[in-house]
């Protein structure tokens, strides 16, 4: 069983990231680490597409903030101990998505049986934004009815 991993580092995503994010090191992709999981309430898969999650503020490059619902998160930019390659599965044909987490190798094996799938390394990332502190509740935000928990 052989899976070809192609490397295509440039122009994987068009257009580029906004400049305030791009200056963190990579102009097409950024990694954001959160403590816990992002829990988004919704009933059907289709309604999640493009759903608003929160506001990311990078006015101060050393102190990024994220507002999710009525919570404010403060974060920092961290250099990764080892660079991370981001692998992306490209598919030419529609296919079902995998439910839950499975064994890694068997999942890769399944992929080869589908000729429309290939993996490629689309970016090498050296920094990430980490929001590791507890969320602070905020009032006075008004308007927003989106619910998110961190």
């Amino acid at each position, binding site marked *: 069983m052989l899976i070809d991993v192609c490397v295509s580092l440039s122009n994987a995503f068009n257009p580029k990231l906004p400049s305030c994010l791009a200056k963190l090191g990579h102009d097409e992709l950024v990694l954001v680490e959160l403590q816990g999981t992002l829990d988004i309430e919704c009933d059907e898969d289709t309604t999640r597409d493009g759903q608003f999650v929160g506001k990311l503020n990078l006015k101060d490059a050393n102190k990024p903030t994220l507002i999710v619902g009525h919570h404010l998160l403060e974060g920092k930019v961290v250099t990764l101990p080892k660079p991370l390659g981001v692998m992306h599965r490209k598919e030419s044909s*529609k296919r079902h998505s995998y439910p839950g987490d499975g064994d890694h190798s068997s999942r890769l094996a399944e992929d080869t049986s589908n000729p429309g799938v290939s993996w490629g390394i689309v970016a090498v990332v050296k920094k990430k934004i980490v929001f590791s502190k507890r969320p602070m509740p905020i009032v006075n935000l008004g308007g927003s009815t989106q619910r998110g928990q961190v």
Partner: protein
Amino acid sequence: MSELDLRLSAATAQDTGSFRLLELPPELCQIIESASEKTAASLFIKGHPTEDAVLCTSEKTYTVRSVVLSNTVLVVTPSRSDPNGTVHIRDQLHEILELVPVVPKLHKLSILLRDMEYDEGDEDRQATMPKYSYEQARSEIQASEAEFIRGLKERRILVLEGQLRPIAPAHLCTILELLLNYLISLSLSHQAAAVEELVSVLSDEHEIPRAVSNQVISWFGDVKEGLWKMDPDAVIRELGVGILRHHRYNPISENEFFKKWKNVVGDTFESSVKLSLLSGDYLRNLSSIGEEATLTYFPSSALPVDPAARFVELFLTRQRWKHEEIEHFLLDIAVNSKERDKLLLKHARALTDTEGIWYTARVSYNN
């Protein structure tokens, strides 16, 4: 603009599960980054569904291990419709794939090819023999391209009509002896011998197929522009192993062995014969004082591949090992000397006395 809307991907069903994070060791990172500029890097993930997956570059092999994170990592990319004000979460990840360099898993070859040995005059058997092709092995064996080719060479496996056929050790020694003889009788230099001439004479007078002798010649030295620069040490070693192979359970005295060995390599190479060429394949036993040393055949290739099992076997064979001796039997299971020392530290106990460092078993296997 410094405030951005963070939104889920526009196609969540398609994007979820389509990203993986791969922790890159420095050398791999370099390969990937330089690849984008000029040539494409060839990276492969290899393995049978029942095996642990490995990632191969053209030179090296890494195991792929999944490390679970308690945090969530969001993969965020720009938005197509609103590039300046919105970014999309494409995927939420809870694991990182860690890459650890490993020795290529070539040992499977000898098991897969067990019944396919190539020997003199087995043309009749060929039709009924199980087959395992070069291409099949290349896609199934968890090793990089370079390691795979080297592995075939080191294991003395012929590629005949696209099928893999390990050569019978005795037959290989016969061919090597013939080659040495013809080098002399045709008065060719072993630094630059015409391959064509050797191959022809072997095929005309001994019915050794050209494909076989050509490959054997290429295993034992470099062929450049039709000229063979023989690697004398490799040839001498192979012939030595050939003699020693018959002495797995019945030791041969060192002097007798050397006599036979020198005889077989001939006058030209008599002086290059030394025991260190055979390291990793023999055991030297000193019995009671006054008696001469004896040798037995003890190939590291026949030892278990799993480190723990290998140490059990080593310490059952001998209760204590000198550092210089044991290291040869660990070469093929450790990536480098640092890994080897780690194995020693884990599975053996070191003792230092006037003779140097000795290793004994951590646990006692005998009682």
